[in-house]
């Protein structure tokens, strides 16, 4: 996808932390959010430059970290 493809979520799966957190639903409606884009100054080139590339794969390291 070109935008909005990376979601960051708490590790709450059965294999990770079963019943450790209280489930909380997000109530916001994001309908139409992807048509509200604009250009933002990238202070000191803090963020990677825009290339427009597609994210086609979910690399393994997105899942793992310090355990």
């Amino acid at each position: 996808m070109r935008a909005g493809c990376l979601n960051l979520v708490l590790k709450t799966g059965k294999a990770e932390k079963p019943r450790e957190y209280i489930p909380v639903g997000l109530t916001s409606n994001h309908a139409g959010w992807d048509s509200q884009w604009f250009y933002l100054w990238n202070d000191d080139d803090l963020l990677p430059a825009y290339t427009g590339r597609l994210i086609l794969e979910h690399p393994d390291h997105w899942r793992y970290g310090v355990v």
Partner: protein
Amino acid sequence: MPVRLIAADDWRPSSMTEHRLLELEREGLLRSRVSSLRPEWIAPAADHREPRPPKGYVVSFAKFHCHGLGSPLRCFMRALCHHYGVELQHFSPNAITAATVFAAVCEGYLGMMPHWDLWLHLYRGELFHAPVEPQG
């Protein structure tokens, strides 16, 4: 095993106007535009069907700023981009919320900068799949 995404979305033309961006500025969600030579934000030109940011600019979304994306951007966002190998536009609005909440807990409750090992311990990345309409 890596998960492959089959379909890719096209960009939708932007509905953001200078008027709407000024509203975000008035709400304190964007910094003041200030300089005409290097403004803090720019509304896309009408003929930009997909993003073509000028040099030195990235693509952001109004929703990101409503969900806590600070401006100037936190070093934490830079770390997230580099770790996950993505650009700002690749985050979902809920991902911005998650990062903002985490930074607020670290800074406001734990009294420290966002801690990278704690982030990796608590959070993982997921590839969002847009719903695909069944054919036929």
